[in-house]
């Protein structure tokens, strides 16, 4: 199924500009060994609720070798109303190298995702990847905390599975507007994560309550590393606690992108590196960055 355009090694770890690899001291490089623009076939594409869709593609390698936190640059189909010109970066929801499957969970928000939402089972689409630097789990970590909101939870689900596969315990704090929009509970449950659902609906998503949960996890020794995605407010909270409690962490970030390959410098974000503000590319220096260097958006 599908056709591989190219299949060549890419340099690992450090950014092409020679800057240091990102992320806390990790067990192994988490960058991909290959990148290619492949043709995937849609095998399932369903609405999970009014806003979120789940896209499952059968795709040749290297796509299914993607790691947690990495992303693909997707060629989104045109519709009568929406003609996305550039590709859209989409973080990995699941990769299954055995069955040659990659999955995405996305929120339909604009021209690109509306175009993407139109693709039918059986149709093909191009996906460039796997791209970027994924999550890393520090050596010796026994238990981690993941904190996500909205579609950001989709990015954290494969991280929880990667942790579980290494025997690392997971506490998952899932934040959403309402019970109906909590994503991926079953993914976190399946790996035996301790799950805390916090909602705007009942006020439990309030940062003070989330802070209480995070402090509790740290107090009982279940927070060797912090991970977050999907909320500026939650990122700042986790960053503050991480600094206070000396817990290393990572954050997965988004930015408007063009090439996805580190060439165009469209997708930069500012980071505070030893007190100096430094612009980094989300596509190749990230999208997963050290939590303590991230800046609010």
């Amino acid at each position, binding site marked *: 199924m599908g056709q591989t355009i190219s299949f060549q090694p890419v340099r690992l770890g450090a950014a092409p500009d020679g800057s240091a690899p990102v992320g806390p001291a990790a067990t192994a490089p988490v960058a991909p060994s290959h990148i290619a623009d492949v043709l995937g076939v849609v095998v399932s594409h369903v609405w999970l609720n009014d806003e979120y869709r789940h896209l499952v593609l059968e795709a040749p390698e290297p796509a299914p070798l993607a790691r947690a936190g990495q992303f693909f640059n997707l060629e989104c189909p045109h519709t009568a109303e929406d*003609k*996305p*010109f550039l590709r859209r970066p989409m973080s990995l929801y699941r990769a299954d190298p055995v069955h040659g499957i990659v999955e995405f969970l996305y929120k339909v928000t604009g021209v690109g995702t509306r175009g993407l939402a139109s693709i039918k089972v059986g149709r093909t689409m191009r996906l460039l990847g796997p791209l970027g630097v994924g999550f890393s789990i520090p050596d010796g970590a026994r238990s981690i905390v993941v904190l996500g909101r909205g579609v950001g939870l989709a990015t954290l689900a494969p991280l929880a599975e990667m942790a579980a596969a290494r025997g690392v315990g997971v506490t998952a704090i899932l934040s959403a507007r309402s019970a109906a929009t909590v994503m991926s509970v079953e993914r976190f449950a399946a790996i035996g994560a301790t799950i805390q659902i916090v909602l705007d609906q009942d006020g439990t998503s309030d940062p003070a309550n989330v802070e209480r949960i995070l402090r509790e996890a740290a107090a009982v020794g279940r927070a060797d590393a912090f991970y977050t995605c999907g909320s500026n407010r939650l990122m700042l909270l986790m960053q503050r606690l991480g600094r206070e409690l000396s817990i290393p962490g990572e954050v997965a970030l988004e930015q408007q992108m063009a090439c996805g390959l*580190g060439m165009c410098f469209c997708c*930069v974000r500012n980071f505070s590196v030893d007190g100096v503000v430094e612009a980094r590319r989300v596509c190749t220096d990230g999208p997963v960055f050290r939590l303590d260097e991230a800046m609010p958006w």
Partner: protein
Amino acid sequence: MVDRGSVDTRVRIGDLVLRNPVMPASGTFAEGLAPVVPFERLGALVTKTVTAELRGGNPTPRVCEVGQGMLNSIGIPSKGIDDFLEHTLPFYRGFATPLVASVSAPSGDAFAEAVARLDAPGVAAIEANISCPNIEEDGKAFAMDPRSTAQVVAKIRRATKLPVWVKLSPNTGDVASVARAAEDAGADALVVANTILAMSIDIETFRPRLGNVMGGLSGPAVKPIVVRMVYQCARVARIPVIGCGGISTAADAVEYMLAGASAVQVGTATFVRPTAMLTVIDGLIQFCARKGFARVADLTGAVHDADMTVDTVEVAS
């Protein structure tokens, strides 16, 4: 018909012979493309614009799409020429494809100094990006008028023995006069053209869609405008013209060559389809085979227009 395998794809740009006329446009190409495109298949490699000074670039958003094109305002982030010589250049020495170093500077003297430092093993040619603001002319881009173009190109010419390609701006009322000025000042080739100054506003938020308010338009939307500019420049220039603007298919490249381009640069299309340059190369060969052209270079200026006149003011001829 000509057999595909026998089509001669080589083109000559001054003293440089390229294996084919297809190369990336500056700013849309870097080391990151190596996993997806074999660099040995390209006619040349063109780096992102480097400047002597360290530049951080513009605020985000730096990109937005507009119909079948995109606006960008990156702001030429640059780590400086030392970093280029130490880190970027060695990477490209591993490829048997000529490397064109794109350079920019805020004044004629700064341009000359930067160009001189780029005369290093592994650099086959200089592409002078003169679309940037000239601080000696109140920030007006060099390429906006023939006089400042002549001044800066003359200084660049004296600073290097390397071939100098001058990248022109479409943001001028008289591109042909600018082309002639660049040639007379010693350019070896002209790259026509850079992005077109443009703007877009988000009607929901009432905010400009780029952090820099204005930016450069590229992609299929600009192609007819730049084909016209290549045609105008090629009619007045004796040096080769390299077409650049909205090329994403072999048909686009053929059109540029017929208009007078000796080679083409593919830019934005690489963002949409990373392998676009390879598709253009393959398609050019097929086109030549189908049309009975033994040499791709024979397409240059082959437009049939001898019996036609242009009923507009041609200020440059």
